[in-house]
């Protein structure tokens, strides 16, 4: 009996599909428009950041303490890439939607799904195109880094790569959301509304619920913006990386389920359930996997190395009861300076926030408000400090160990740079847009080689 299988999925070459997807995204106006819009946006942010960094550096010339607080990660990289983040949140969904939306609207999708590739392969090829698009739209931001180095600025490789990696994950996450939206929506316009509702909605969620406690804090953690924060703080968090990549994979799997047009909606819904559960699980991962690496040059997320080593040897459970409400600025200080670092340094730390808003309102008569109780093994102690200089000796006292001697040469000296980047605006509003326009024109030329090949073959 003759086999009806001229081309099984495993035999289908992937290269033409990938080439087609890349060419499709380069053919569209959305990518080039976004690139042109990103140039001045990033340029202005970069110039402002360098200007402020330069002013702070001028003040720091006489003060080593002030100089030590000058890190290019905080002063230049994060603000510059902050503009890129805004552009990716607002504009990148349009670019990502195009990889599928155009085919849906023109009817080409009905040809595409008949090709000898699996739905998952088609979606992965489209995700690869989204990745390529992200790389292209990041060119202005990367060029800002190159300019910073040419100006004599310092870049720490680990924290720079970590920040770029965070933005890459964020871009792919936005791309995967947009791709899924394009799969379920009938038109690109509807897909854009769905994707922007998620990206901008999560943005709004982040700043309206920031600093709240309880359920609001849990909901705020689901914001996409939260995915970038640790990278901006110089942390490479295993849980977060795994959570974001799993979410991207889950959204891609959902897109694969919803792509084939001939499958009844009921079956698609049934097949979506495992993907949706996997995404929910992925969203919980960052809170469950605590391993992270402090990639910053100034080790801002860690105690001094000697303290880190000693704290890692304290194996008993440490329970910290914080009698502050999360909205209290002292809690934010404590969290940043002590709790987050202890959580990373010690193997078994539990933090319990016991402060209530009633206590906070009556703190004049409630002496206990503001107290932080540390219990290690059978011993406990209380203080109110938010500084590691006071908390660490207290902990060592509870554990009955000697504090480590301060290691010389451990201090971060900072990288002040008195400079202005005003002249680079010409690059961001002139040179780079011209290059982009040139590349756009070049990408629209007919493929001369193919034309000659086929016309030649016929003659």
């Amino acid at each position, binding site marked *: 009996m003759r086999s009806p299988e001229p081309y099984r999925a495993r035999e289908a070459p992937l290269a033409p599909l990938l080439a087609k997807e890349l060419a499709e995204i380069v053919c569209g106006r959305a990518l080039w428009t976004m690139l042109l819009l990103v140039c001045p946006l990033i340029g202005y942010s970069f110039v402002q950041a360098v200007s402020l960094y330069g002013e702070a550096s001028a003040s720091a010339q006489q003060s080593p303490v002030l100089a030590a607080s000058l890190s290019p990660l905080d002063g230049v990289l994060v603000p510059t890439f902050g503009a890129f983040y805004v552009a990716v949140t607002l504009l990148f969904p349009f670019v990502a939607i195009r990889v599928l939306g155009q085919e849906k609207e023109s009817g080409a999708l009905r040809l595409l799904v008949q090709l000898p590739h699996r739905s998952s392969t088609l979606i992965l090829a489209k995700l690869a195109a989204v990745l390529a698009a992200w790389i292209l739209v990041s060119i202005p931001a990367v060029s800002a880094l190159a300019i910073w180095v040419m100006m004599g600025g310092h870049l720490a490789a680990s924290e720079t790569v970590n920040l770029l990696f965070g933005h890459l994950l964020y871009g792919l996450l936005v791309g995967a959301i947009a791709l899924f939206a394009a799969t379920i929506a009938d038109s690109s316009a509807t897909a854009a509304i769905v994707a922007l509702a998620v990206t901008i909605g999560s943005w709004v969620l982040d700043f309206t619920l920031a600093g709240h406690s309880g359920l609001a804090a849990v909901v705020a953690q689901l914001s996409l913006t939260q995915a970038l924060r640790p990278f901006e703080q110089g942390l490479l968090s295993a849980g977060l990386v795994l959570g974001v990549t799993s979410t991207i994979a889950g959204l891609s799997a959902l897109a694969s389920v919803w792509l084939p047009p001939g499958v009844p909606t009921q079956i698609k819904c049934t097949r979506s359930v495992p993907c949706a559960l996997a995404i929910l699980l992925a969203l919980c991962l960052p809170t469950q996997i605590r391993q992270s690496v402090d990639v910053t040059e100034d080790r801002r997320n860690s105690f001094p190395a000697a303290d880190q080593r000693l704290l890692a040897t304290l194996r008993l459970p440490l329970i910290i009861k914080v009698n502050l409400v999360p909205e209290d600025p002292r809690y934010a200080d404590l969290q940043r300076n002590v709790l987050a670092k202890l959580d990373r340094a010690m193997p078994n730390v539990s933090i319990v926030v016991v402060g209530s808003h009633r206590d906070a309102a009556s703190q004049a008569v409630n002496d206990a408000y503001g107290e932080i109780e540390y219990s290690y093994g059978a011993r406990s102690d209380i203080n109110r400090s938010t500084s590691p200089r006071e908390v660490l000796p207290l902990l060592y006292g509870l554990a009955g160990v000697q504090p480590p001697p301060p290691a010389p040469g451990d201090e971060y000296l900072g990288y002040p740079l008195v400079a202005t980047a005003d002249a680079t605006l010409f690059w961001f509003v002139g040179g780079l847009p011209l290059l982009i326009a040139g590349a756009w024109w070049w990408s629209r030329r007919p493929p001369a080689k193919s034309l000659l090949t*086929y016309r030649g*073959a016929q003659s």
Partner: protein
Amino acid sequence: MIPTDAAAHDKSRELLRVEELTKRYGPETAVAHVSFSVAAGEILGIVGPNGAGKTTLLEALVGLIAAEQGAAFWCGEELPPPRRKEALFYLPDGIWPYQDRFAIDVMTFFARVYKRTDAQTAATINAVGLTPVLGKRVHSLSKGYNRRLLLGLGLLTPHDVLVMDEPFDGFDIRQTRAIIDVIRREAARGRTFILAIHQLADAERACDRFLLLAGGKVRGIGTLGELRAKTALASGSLEEIFLALT
């Protein structure tokens, strides 16, 4: 033109059989219990007026829309909807594939996916008369050239059965005849065609057998001679037969 496995094709043998295909949109039945079969190298015309259910029938057949009922059999073996794309390739009506790309890019893409040589691709381009517009973007092609492009894509595929919706829409009489010649030559090499056509004169010129569809139901099926016998119109045209049966 691309040679297919001519030895494997046998006109006398049933290649594809469709049984009781039914598609409903809510309370409305678009296609009701349609059954037919095609042999290798045959050109079957699904003929009917606009709204007869031709496109729905084709899309349900190739698995692009979910049918409520019915089955397709390939050489006697059931072919479930997810696997129909392995045997059938469908060229829909009214699509402009990859509008921003050049016609040559779209042809090259299909040629590379199906591992066609440059000579095979060039022969297909020549056969469908696409050469003058290879350097044009798809969105700037005329309706006729867009049809040629779609036909070219279909001919680049290795599928034994090509299913085409309104393949002659947008062509004048000479172009229609030229395209019919292309389809006939390909059918002579053993490829099977299922064509949905609303122009009865075109269908009569192009097809070996006809499935007359109206209101989603089969009103007649057979060769022109068989349909003439059934309607007792000894020299009746397909148009007259269709009117007699519907």
